[in-house]
């Protein structure tokens, strides 16, 4: 994948993010800040009876990578159970984003996943 293709994916999500907004009657929600750049994200989640994510939205001000991360993550986790997300690693998410993320931008990409974990009150899985 060329850098330009990567950039296109990121910028598409940046300009037209999926699941952007706030769920008013959310069951779970959290805010998180990236202290490096001041980016802020809010995630709101609606759960069904089986503890599956039935709806999820994210919002906040941030860079293209953090916003693309939120856009892609919310697509991925919709329909997933909390128990499954407990096993979802940082590395897996970066892979699922499908675009190369430089080390300097990892924190931006992971802001969404960290905010989601905070909302669901789950901890980062240990890497085997």
């Amino acid at each position, binding site marked *: 994948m060329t*850098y330009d293709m990567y*950039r296109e994916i990121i*910028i598409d999500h940046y*300009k037209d993010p999926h699941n952007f907004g706030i769920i008013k009657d959310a069951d779970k929600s959290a805010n998180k800040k990236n202290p*490096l*750049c*001041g*980016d*802020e994200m809010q995630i709101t989640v609606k759960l069904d009876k089986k503890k599956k994510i039935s709806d999820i939205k994210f919002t906040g*001000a*941030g*860079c*293209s*990578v953090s916003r693309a991360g939120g856009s892609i993550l919310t697509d991925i986790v919709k329909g997933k159970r909390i128990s499954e997300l407990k096993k979802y690693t940082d590395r897996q998410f970066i892979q699922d984003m499908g675009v190369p993320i*430089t080390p*300097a*931008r990892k924190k*931006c990409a992971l802001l969404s996943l960290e905010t989601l974990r905070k909302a669901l009150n789950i901890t980062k899985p240990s890497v085997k």
Partner: protein
Amino acid sequence: MRKQLGQNIKKDFPIFKNNPGLVFLDSGASAQKPQAVIRAITDCYEKYYANVHRGIYKLSEKSSAAYESVRAKAAGFINAGSEKRIVFTRNTTESINLVAYTWGRQNIRAGDEILLTEMEHHANMLPWRVLAKEKKASVKYWPINQEGRLDLNELDKLLTKKTKLVAFTQMSNVLGTINPAKEIIKKIRSQGSALVLIDGAQSVPHFSVDVRDLDADFYVFSSHKMCGPTGVGVLYAKDEILEKMNPFLYGGDMIANVTLQEMEWSEVPAKFEAGTPAIAEVIGFGAAIDYLQDIGMDNVFKYEEEMVKAGLRALLSVEGLKLFGPHEPEARGAVFAFEIPGVHPHDAASIFDEQNIAVRAGHHCAQPLHQKLGIPASLRASFYLYNTLEDLNKLISGIKKAQEIFGL
């Protein structure tokens, strides 16, 4: 001599040979090192390294002499008048913490006031706030105006009988503003007995500083921003203040005599330098001072003045770009913080990086200042003696490229 700065001087810095095409615009965070500095450190380790102030043998005598000679060089560099007024620390942050933990804890009492400015780096803000909280003293902030400058008339309203310390930066690491330190100190002296600490981290590398002419009580700066190694900072203070200050850290190399009952401290400045210091780094710092003095700080300043003028012209002509800090060249140094509306600073920095342009993106350890500017983060391009107009042109192309990618 001026002609030798910029492109011609890059050859003194191995980093540019090993990274062809590098456009390094982050010297405000830390400057690159000339071969002479690297060689001085290698020489120390290869030829005469031993711990200082201890061994009764030739190597230790030689390394002690080399280490102590840098104290005299540092004193000369800022016209301290005596090497006894130079305390080596790890960096500017530690120098300020040293003052806050010793002088601060001995002198600040409940109800006292410490005056800071809104443009301070966290290093010259948090130690004072923690001290104030501990002592039930208060911290006041001298606001910046629209241009990112301090208004001297405001000072009259802020200084009171309770003001015990005024701490301010000589040059902002974000806005580039050069504060009129001498005038500020004169005004403070005319209104009371507050002591003054100047953060010189961004000024000492770029222009000649005379601490006695300024009449600063405390003056602090770092080696690594002036072509020297990391791990070395300087605290200058007046004799009578240093004499009354308690030690900061306790242990080896700072005592005159210890029994199981008694403890007697070394004389100033040794009493503030507990433990084995950064010997080779201090010696490397000496080489950095020699390097800059060879060029001449007035030449560095004149060269950078041209950079300031060219930088202002170029950045202010980019459509949509928002430049922070003064727009008059006389009021600032070659540190440019800016925003490209529609492009997040991290995205812009990544796009620059693709073109081998290194800038800083973030709040540059001045979060309250960014809150005042109404932005979470900014981009910062900081120039030094090895930067050229070509570097500036590449930055401008990088900015235009970022705008193009984001469809602006």
